[in-house]
């Protein structure tokens, strides 16, 4: 077993454990910090796959941005961790069988599959920043520009939602 395989399982275990803890832990602050574990695991998997740009983006955007935002969100809503109360797990006996059924369905499908076999359509060099830049401003320029419209619209909508109604 090569070092890559060991690292993959380590990072995969980190992501899954972090994700599960984020969902199941009753205190919201704990859930936020277990997301950190999850994000770091995903970063590791990206790095292992040779997607250097994605790994750095994941680190900067999710760990540096989203997590800090979540932490500030808890801080600024003026509630301490205690007064936020505990989140509860409901519908356990409906959710569990459905989740397990989907899980085993996927395992069976993966087992019977002959593999994806699509190959790296992007090619060896495209995983780098340069290749992504060319794709974004080349083939995907419409999507790239359209994303800015999405952000503008979302920003306007968010500003409306948080605005207090005029007295």
């Amino acid at each position, binding site marked *: 077993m090569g070092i890559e395989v060991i690292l993959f399982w380590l990072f995969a275990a980190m992501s899954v454990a972090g994700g599960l803890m984020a969902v199941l832990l009753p205190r919201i602050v704990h859930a936020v910090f277990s997301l950190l574990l999850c994000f770091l695991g995903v970063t590791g998997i990206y790095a292992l796959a040779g997607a250097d740009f994605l790994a750095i983006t994941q680190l900067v955007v999710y760990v540096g941005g989203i997590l800090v935002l979540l932490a500030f969100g808890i801080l600024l809503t003026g509630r301490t961790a205690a007064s936020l109360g505990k989140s509860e797990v409901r519908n356990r006996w409906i959710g569990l069988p459905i989740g397990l059924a989907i899980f085993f369905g996927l395992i069976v499908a993966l087992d019977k599959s002959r593999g994806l076999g699509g190959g790296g*359509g992007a090619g060896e060099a495209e995983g780098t920043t340069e290749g992504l830049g060319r794709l974004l*401003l080349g083939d995907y320029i419409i999507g790239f520009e359209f994303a800015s419209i999405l952000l503008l619209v979302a920003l306007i909508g968010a500003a409306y939602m948080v605005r207090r109604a005029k007295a």
Partner: protein
Amino acid sequence: MLAETWIPDLSALFSHFMAESILVIAIPVIVVADLLGKPEGRDRRAHSVALVALVTAFLVALFQPTGAHLTALLRADGLAKIFRLLALGTGIVAAISALRSRDLPRAHTEFFVLLLGAVLGACLTAAANDLAMLYLSIETLSICGYLLAGFKKDEKGAEAAMKYVLFGAISSGLMLYGMSLLYGFAGTAVLTSATGPSIADAAMRAGGDPLFVVAVILVFAGLAYKVAAAPFQFWCPDVYEGSPTSVAAFLAVASKGAGFAATLRVIAAISGGGAASSETIQAFLLIAAVVTMTVGNVAALRQTNAKRLLAYSAIAHAGTLLLGVAVTSEAGVTAVIFYMVIYLFMTLGAFYIVSLVENETGRADIDSFEGLGFRAPMLALCMGVCLISLTGLPPTAGFLGKFFLFKEVFAYAGREGSSLFFWGGIIGLLNSVVALAYYTKFLRAMYLCDEDRKQGTFKFAGVDRSVVLALTIPILVLGILFQSLGLIASNLARGLF
């Protein structure tokens, strides 16, 4: 190195996507118009710009050329054209309905920016030929939808927006997982391509690989949520009830239409060449269709709120349309387009009248329709036409829509000897009978009620009269001149398979 070849030539693209470009320009114009001039005229400026943009875009879209493979990301084919027109048309009616309604908060700038964003998302969803582009446009449509659903900022609105967001997040996560698997199979995110590798090729190579089928079903989960098909229909009644009625109408028609356009494109790509996995996927779609319409129709029976009832009816219609999708042939697509056009008129008509009644009485219960047949005979007559068409009875166009759709289903069942499709069609027909039971609730309230509810007048303006007539007259006209619409629909469906 400015003349490098990897920068694509976009001039040809703009001529094919003029309508979308108009919307893109209109969004910042609304924002800037909000800041210029007197604050009192702010709402008027916002809705004038939005209405002008929507109407111009609609007229431009009517004459926009189709065909030509311009870019791998977007297709400007017949499917894109018809669903773009549906989205823009719904946008116009929703905008007028919002302006006429009493419950819209005085924040027209934000409302119309979000509405234009949603219409833009719906247009591009119908044109997207690349999974990344498809996801981006669906998310634009959804995010604008979440915000519009909670636009009233009251308790029901908050519930509606929250449910919509949570369901949206789950189904969009499932869809992304499916898309990532499809990308793994194909090595590209392009659905169909004349030259390079595509997901259509990968479908041929994968054969009946179970993981490929799982991937397609996962992608379908995201789309099922957009069209409100089972088991992703739970959000529908609560969201329609809590949203402003104009928004509910938009979600019921434009959002659903965009979802169907995307479903048709994905299904056409993966089963175009007769790939081995397509039979499994067809069976899955058929079962989803039958369950959806049964769930929608049975639940609709117990409703007393007009918007909730129309929500369940919208779920039932999604099931009917899915039957047409499951046929996966050009004739099936023709039937779906035909039905979708008629669905636009009857659903928008019904929602518009509900919003008028809501304006007058402040409630959207079926009780508030009592005596409408005597207080506003024209309005009640138009509502009656919409309801008869929604049920699928002659002489309305709704009957022909159902007729052509079921004809294709039974033709397929006969051709392939598929008993699954035969029984699917039978259950579909039985469902129409159930639908009659709940649509007549409105008719009973409007015409058969106590004497004292028949008194008094029901005020509505000339604009409302024109919109209602513009939506209901085509239902009757298309019931007679169906052949031309059928011809247009079959032209638009050409080349998809």
